[in-house]
């Protein structure tokens, strides 16, 4: 007698089984892709925006401005408003206030699981119309609040890459 293919479930099939509680380790021996880049992509061989990452390593958060004064986020190689390619690097303010936040308590991507729980939020930068999204550190999520003061903080990863986040400075 020939084996048959398992039938597809009838519409009244039992409830689906829960997914496994703990994720197995990655299938191959690899560095977890923190920053969601499996390879470093921040240098001048990879991106025309490498000055942004060079500035981060010097502790400065920058972005681009076109000759007409359009400041954009994220930094660009072409201004989305006037399509100018003659863009200049400008420093962004180092302080701001939380516009909205939440905490990731479960469901982290690869490389972020050991950091649970963590806080993310939208921050209005002082004296600009710019609102940035980012990680917020320095206060547990249960004590963060809308309107709280934060400062921009740059940080370097073990592999030499750089990124930015916000640190709470007051209530």
């Amino acid at each position, binding site marked *: 007698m020939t084996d048959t293919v398992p039938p*597809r479930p009838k*519409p009244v099939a039992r409830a689906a089984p829960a*997914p496994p509680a703990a994720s197995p380790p990655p299938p191959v021996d690899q560095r977890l892709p923190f920053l969601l880049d499996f390879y470093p992509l921040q240098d001048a061989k990879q991106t025309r925006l490498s000055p942004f990452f060079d500035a981060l390593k010097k502790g400065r958060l920058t972005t681009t401005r076109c000759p007409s004064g359009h400041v954009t986020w994220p930094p660009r190689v072409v201004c989305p408003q006037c399509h100018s390619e003659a863009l200049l690097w400008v420093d962004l303010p180092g302080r701001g206030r939380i*516009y909205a936040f*939440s905490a990731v308590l*479960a*469901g982290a*991507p*690869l490389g972020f699981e050991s950091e649970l729980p963590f806080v993310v939020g939208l921050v209005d930068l002082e004296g600009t119309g710019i609102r940035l999204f980012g990680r917020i550190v320095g206060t547990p999520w249960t004590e963060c609040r809308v309107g709280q003061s934060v400062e921009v903080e740059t940080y370097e990863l073990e592999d030499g890459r750089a990124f930015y986040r916000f640190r709470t400075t007051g209530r």
Partner: protein
Amino acid sequence: MTENREVALVGGATTKFGVRAATWPELCQEAGAAIFQAIPKLSAGDVDSLFLGAAEPERFAFQSHVAPLAAEQLGITPHRIIQRTELACASGQSAIRSAYAAIASGLSDVAIAVGVEKMNLPSMAEANTSMACVMDRPWDGPHGATAPPFFAMVAQRHMLEYGTTEEQLAAVSEKNHRFANTNPTSQFFEKKFDREKLMRLPLVAPPLRLGDCSSMTDGAAAVVLTRGDWARRFTDTPVFVRGTGQYSHFHNLANAGSLTDWVGLTHAAREALGRAGITIQDVDFAEVHDCFTISEIVEYEALGLCPPGHGGRFVLDGRSDLGGDIVVNPRGGLLGCGHPLGATGVAQAVEVYQQFARTVPAARQVPDPAWALVHNLSGSANVHSVMVYQGAA
């Protein structure tokens, strides 16, 4: 200017949604079996075009070039147009819209729109990485952004600005799970949730709890669209596409603007309703994108069903339920059915067809429907996609 041809929806079907012991191609085969069983007068040779809604098969199933793969699974040989549509969570409605455009213009006569997503992998972190890639990956992704914290911020601002409550959020989830209990293909068909139970579930991204979030789901769905004058070859209850609209508002989270006023949905709905020549008050039922409970509340407001800030009260007062102003998400929504990204937009249209055909269980049948609106959102409410359908007279 050439007049567009009328386009009809002549049938639809979905697979069982859930955490499925089935691969991407197997789900696709199941959708093929389901659609040909649902439309007995349709043969494979009738189908001239395939539009495949698939959000992330490269990440979830490690597979590119999925349109011809899908055609082979479905047992069809498209000979006019075959393509994949990708718009993250709205890939499914994009497939339907593309089929509509092809038929309206005369390039296709009979098209199948299929949505497929396989999301549950042995590693949930891998699946969550796929979800993070829907965001602006190099800029938002590195902070750990996925959908739940974004929609949690929408909820936080809505609570702050308008006094929306956790009970109002739970009322959305309770309604949609109750409808899903009438839908055997839904992920949570057998799971009962009352408001109190929902408000005790664990927090995922505060203020959102587990019951406020749609699930990682495996599933597929299919619909067939034909030129209007051929519709009755395939069904006695054709449904006609009367309007469509989309609006792409932003992508990077920094550029979202107001979190609580989804102007993109207002624009997309105005375009779709305007093309249909009706207003939102004429719509009898709507399938809207309740990826999170707060989404449905903001959508009532953006659609003009209630004033800004009144969405929480709208659901709590039963105005989006059977017997209310409009029935919202009678299928069970994304909350109750699960959310296989590419399949969701197609499954919404399946419900539209079945509601007009009066083939759904009485517990969710909208009485005497004439007009339906479908809203499919993508990413962090980046793009809003809307279609308007009319039942046959």
